[in-house]
């Protein structure tokens, strides 16, 4: 089976629907013979990975789409086995280091060294180098990034690295300076409408413009989300006419309800209730930072202007702690309690001079 989002994905730089200028530049880079390391960044669902794969095809031809999935086992110094899935073709290899958890440095080092030390054997290949794609590069640990930095210089002759990240802020400067930065911006709503219409045409139906507008509005610039929503909607109501209700994902609705819980009552008992909900969210694998962000945005929507800055300040504050600490629930709850306390004090008009 394939989801539409996979099925109707553009495969060449020429067939990409938006960011023509970027496509042109990638095309000329690929044909120049002097291809640099690259860093693609931009919001999720903007089309970074699609552009990367189109670029690869431009570089190596259709052979690059002949993929196999391979599972490699890495052995940590403490004899723990880490399984990492590798997607590879003859010309490139993709890794998602976050799969390796804390041992991403090891995986990156071992793998890159191995790849870099083998020459391209295929005489018919268009390029003399191989490409390593590192997904979710912004979740690489400091160690792994430091390891990457050395490798990038040393093995430039037979390897290129393409990094994919949501934002460059968590990459160390030496890596950024060794890459050509490619920003892939989120598509405009007009561009999204075009893409949706294209997908509908390929899938063999007509998309009413109202429905399209609604989906675009809901998706917030995330193309992948828009197409997934379209597919889900089409499955639920095949004619796509009439009033459409775009259901939010369960976890998002859940987060919003938790935010409502926080605002409606502030007491130790309510803290317990909220905690149970937070546990529920965590046990559904929702990343804690996403939980915090979603709830915080919802809470900020609902409270008085004077409180908004403080609430966001504390959200940021506890997010940092959450990244450092190990028990996520402590920090989520500490933020919840802080918001409750702030809200209550505001409600009773008590001077909050001790808050900075």
């Amino acid at each position: 089976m394939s989801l539409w989002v996979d099925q109707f994905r553009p495969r060449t730089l020429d067939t990409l629907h938006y960011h023509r200028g970027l496509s042109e530049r990638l095309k000329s880079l690929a044909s120049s013979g002097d291809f640099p390391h690259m860093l693609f960044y931009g919001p999720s669902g903007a089309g970074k990975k699609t552009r990367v794969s189109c670029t690869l095809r431009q570089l190596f031809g259709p052979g690059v789409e002949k993929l196999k999935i391979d599972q490699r086992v890495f052995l940590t110094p403490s004899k723990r086995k880490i399984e990492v899935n590798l997607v590879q073709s003859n010309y490139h290899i993709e890794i998602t280091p976050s799969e390796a958890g804390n041992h991403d440095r090891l995986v990156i080092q071992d793998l890159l060294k191995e790849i870099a030390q083998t020459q391209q054997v295929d005489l018919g290949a268009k390029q003399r180098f191989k490409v390593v794609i590192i997904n979710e590069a912004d979740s690489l640990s400091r160690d792994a990034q430091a390891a990457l930095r050395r490798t990038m210089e040393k093995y430039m002759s037979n390897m290129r690295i393409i990094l994919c990240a949501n934002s460059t802020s968590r990459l160390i400067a030496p890596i950024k300076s060794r890459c050509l930065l490619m920003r892939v911006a989120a598509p405009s709503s007009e561009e999204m409408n075009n893409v949706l219409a294209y997908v509908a045409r390929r899938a063999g139906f007509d998309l009413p413009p109202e429905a399209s507008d609604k989906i675009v509005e809901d998706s917030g610039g995330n193309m992948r989300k828009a197409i997934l929503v379209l597919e889900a909607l089409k499955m639920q109501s095949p004619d796509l006419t009439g009033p459409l209700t775009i259901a939010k994902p369960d976890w998002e609705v859940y987060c919003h309800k938790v935010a409502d819980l926080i605002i409606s009552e502030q007491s130790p008992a309510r803290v317990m209730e909220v905690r149970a909900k937070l546990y529920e969210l965590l046990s559904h694998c929702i990343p804690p930072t996403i939980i915090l962000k979603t709830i915080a945005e919802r809470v900020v929507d609902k409270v008085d202007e004077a409180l908004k800055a403080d609430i966001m300040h504390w959200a940021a504050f506890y997010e940092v702690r959450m990244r450092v600490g190990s028990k996520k629930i402590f920090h989520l709850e500490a933020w919840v309690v802080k918001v409750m306390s702030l809200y209550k004090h505001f409600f009773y008009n008590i001077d909050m001079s001790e808050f900075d």
Partner: protein
Amino acid sequence: MSQRPTLSQNAGSQRKPSGSNPKPRTVKLDGTSMSSSAPTKAKRFDPLTAFATQPISSSEPSRAKSGLSKSAKGKEKAPAKQVVDLTAMDDGEDFLWVDRYEPETEAELAVHVRKVADVRAWFQEAMDGGPSGQLRKYRRILVLTGPSGTGKTSTVRVLAKEMGFEILEWRNSISENVTAANFDENIYDGETSTYPTYGPPPESLFIKFEAFLTRASSCGNVFDSASSSSGKSKKTPSHRVILLEDLPNILHQKTQASFHEALIALVNKAPTNPPVPVVIIISDSGVRGEASDERISEGRGWNRDKQVIDIRTVLPRELLFNPIAPTLMRKALQAMLNNHFTATFSTNSAAPSREVVDIIVESSNGDIRSAINALQFACIANKTGKKRKRDQSNALVMEAVTRREQSLALFHLLGKVLYNKRKGDPPNASATAKDLKKEQDLDATLKDPPKLPAHLSHHNRRASRVDVNTLYADSPIDSSLFSLYIHQNYTQYCNDTDETDGVADWLSWVDSSGGEAWYQANPHQFHLISLGTLHSLPSPVPRRSQKAYKPEFFACLQKEKGAWEGVRSTREWLLEGATSTVRILSTHDPRTEIDCHTHAFGLFSLGSCHATVNFKQDDSGWRTGGWSTNEVILELGGVLKARDITQDRSISQRTKPPASHRSFSRMEFVRGAESHSGQLNERDVAEGFVESGDGWPGLDYADVSQRETTEGGWLESDDIEDCD
């Protein structure tokens, strides 16, 4: 022992009981041979015939010295009598009282009568099959757990004696030809193939253990003949029991697995006639403080054992031994004292006073072994020192020496922190006069903290009655687990959100303090948590019948693990669809397979016509990076739901997403459904908690097992029919 010269019988001949053998003879200080040479005698030593004698020359000075001190005290004693006493005492002190006065009858056991009855019933059923005669099949393994020194082993031994079965005990021993290095190797490999062939490879300890198990459980003759040839017992007991107290090294994964296998094999085998039940004795020693090595080893050992049991929950029965109640212990100690002092005729060394016994009982924490040792110590200490001060100083000495590092029950630890008692708190309504006095005394020792300046006045607190250092020393759990318990329970003790805010912020801060690596961990976590909690909680904490709960944290982690499985399988389902055609191809092409093994994708050249034939561009939606887990979790929910709804109509089986996706994609919001993971009781021990330093940060809390209550897990004769 063998160097000890034979007893010169004349030394104690005056005191020798008339019934014993008058001929001089060699007595080895060994219980078994003792009984073999004098089978009519009980195993208990008669101190006058069996004492270890010392050469007269060596005992001379001590005699003189003690004679001196005795005379200084003004006691009128015949010198001859003193000699006897001294030698008698010497002999007695060669043995710990624990061994010397090991209980022999059920009446002597300080274990609760019902527990003994339970064990006895189990043995009876294991031997005879109970009333229906069928239970024999199900009474194969008995696990006795409980803190050390609660009489687990003694109970089995006493029952063995009373019921007339023989105990076959496994002991770990390293045979001489196995050097330390080989030993390790054998333990790790569990097989001898890697062992360099310098000679016949030594049997690994575990293989021996397995052999022991099978032999002991099946072919009884070997053991019978062996035991009879050594003259241990003339009459062969009809029943035997395997006692596993000294378990092989089950901390290692491999040995552990084979240990499980051995046990399971034993259980699955049809019972022999007569059946040989297995008794496993596990002491769960308290885990405390930051002793992480100990924690991990103990925690694992214990949990793993539970695992064995869990596999066969129906079959084995677990009996929990509670710490011995003070009254029972006092009775037992007193009986032992009487016994001792009548047996040795040592009229001059007075029995320890009541107070001393009380202190011992109190400080032993229900550990009868430690209590007996302390008692013996007390009696020895009694012999010296002045009569006047003796009792008083004794009390102090005993307190200092015998106080075992008693661990505070988890329940009380939480209570101490969460009730936040401070100087001058109004007394509890149910407090007795004695408690009030105690509180006042305590308050008198507490110094008032200096007054804070005005801008810090909101930090003013009265002096706390809680001594955090003591808490830390006595805590049965480490600070990480402690923080979880505080986190689970603190809200009940708060009045408003500011207080909760204080505690929550402290918890959060402590969790995020320290560096990334384990060795950079904040060493003051425990103190910070308790002090921070004490500082933030209201004072006094209102009493509203708060209950202590166990942390839900572990249940959540377990659930999260399950959900990650769902994420993985859903992701595989997505990738499967995207790359299926290519996958089939690569399994058909031998060169690709070679490629798979070398893992270097440049090694195999493209260009087989095979590829172009099978490659369908339109069908396989390929995409760099596939789906990241976050994308799957956060964005796929709608489509999965839609597919679930419509799947009965048009979508074929192959395109159905795996059902496990619901573990992360479906969330129903229900109000008021609060689930507590169980209330904490006074006798509860901390749950197994092993934090491994490396790996997936949130997911690696392995071995999260809940202690089950001992009641209810065990099979009665009437529900056997269902199991067959």
